[in-house]
């Protein structure tokens, strides 16, 4: 076992921090660390918190963390903010809303930049959550800006997904378009002291009741005011109730099976892609093939088939 993994399992916060860095950088030692901690994962309740920018996710995450701390749980938080598409840099500001948690020894917060990598964010965030799980966190909150496919992928890696919405940001159809209805286990209408709450609530409920199949769990639509903490206790209760429901209904196992399948396939895809590129597709050849496609001398379908045949012949 690597020293970092052993130290992490022994409770070193420094080792946990370094392990997350290794995973995030796709460093050579990352795989060995993940392999070593894997038997010690699966115990944490992973909760995704997602929603549009400015909805109050960080403040709400701070409150949810405190509610679980009050119940005696150790809490990990992975807070994802976007990287600049221009410089690749990022300003990660979620800690501004989590100041009170900074010195709680039962809390570990890690800010993560999306880095715009091809689907890598979801894997990095899930791996960071797994490392926190192995380090003994009973609850891991993964907070992301809910726009786009990678955020949906992150939600898939959670046991319970809380979608945070605010009144006055478009009608319920916007929520359907964004694809967030399907991923929500719980809706929190935050900033519920503002106008437009009953309308948003009615729209969400109407859309939820349009579902053809009656699901065993109908996502509750809750009101919160993250600034004051109003409604947070009820939100935390519903999160706990959702996990209990998943356990009783067998949903937890089926979700985790689906997640394991997706993870195996994703890792396989990435490994294959890396191998094929290394074996047959150096940058010059890729550029030459791309030029042929653009000049209509070749088509991408035939070229792909030829490359695969070249790599896996015999």
């Amino acid at each position, binding site marked *: 076992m690597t020293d970092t993994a052993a130290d992490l399992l022994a409770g070193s916060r420094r080792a946990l921090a370094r392990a997350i*860095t290794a995973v995030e950088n796709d460093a050579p030692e990352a795989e060995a660390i993940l392999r070593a901690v894997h038997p010690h994962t699966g115990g944490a309740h992973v909760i995704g918190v997602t929603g549009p920018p400015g909805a109050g996710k960080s403040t709400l995450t701070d409150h949810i963390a405190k509610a679980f701390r009050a119940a005696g749980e150790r809490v990990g938080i992975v807070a994802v903010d976007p*990287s600049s598409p221009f410089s690749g840099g*990022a300003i990660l500001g979620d800690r501004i809303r989590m100041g009170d948690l900074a010195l709680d020894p039962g809390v570990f917060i890690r800010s993560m930049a999306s*880095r715009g990598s091809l689907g890598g964010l979801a894997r990095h965030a899930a791996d960071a959550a797994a490392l926190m799980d192995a380090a003994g966190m009973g609850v891991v909150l993964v907070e992301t800006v809910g726009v786009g496919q990678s955020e949906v992928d992150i939600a898939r890696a959670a046991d319970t997904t809380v979608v945070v919405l605010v009144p006055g940001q478009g009608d319920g159809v916007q929520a359907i378009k964004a694809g967030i209805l399907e991923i929500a286990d719980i809706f929190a209408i935050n900033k519920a002291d503002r106008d437009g709450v009953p309308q948003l609530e009615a729209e969400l409920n109407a859309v939820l009741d349009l579902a053809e199949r009656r699901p065993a769990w109908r996502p509750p639509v809750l009101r919160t005011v993250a600034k004051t903490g109003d409604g947070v206790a009820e939100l935390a209760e519903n999160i706990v109730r959702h996990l209990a429901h998943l356990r009783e209904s067998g949903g937890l196992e089926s979700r985790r099976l689906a997640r394991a399948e997706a993870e195996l396939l994703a890792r396989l895809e990435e490994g294959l892609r890396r191998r094929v590129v290394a074996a047959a597709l150096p940058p010059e050849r890729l550029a030459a093939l791309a030029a042929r496609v653009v000049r209509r001398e070749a088509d991408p379908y035939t070229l792909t088939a030829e490359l695969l045949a070249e790599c896996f012949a015999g």
Partner: protein
Amino acid sequence: MKRIRVLVTKPGLDGHDRGAKVVARAFRDAGFEVIYTGLRQTPEMIAETALQEDVDVIGLSLLSGAHNTIFPRLISELKARGLEDLLLIGGGVIPEGDIPSLKAMGVAEIFTPGTPTGKIVDFVAARAG
């Protein structure tokens, strides 16, 4: 892929954060990942955040005149966590006469008002890259 991670933070009771934000923005535009904590951080909070975020650099914005108190306390909190090798820099209203003693205790560089942001970025890139 590795990226330089910088903690930009403001200790104490001073509420002027424009300088810290300008520097944070310059770091982001240079491709660094900046963890921005906002105001009123204690040395203990800063050291603990640096540990959890596994940063390469801590940048402290100080306009309150408390630099001769804050830096030694931060350095001792960092040492307690085994983080004394982090690159520690400061910026703000800090008298020239105080800089040598701050450097002697382990602050890598102090950037006073009027410093072009590019100079700070270059320093960090050279020392932490």
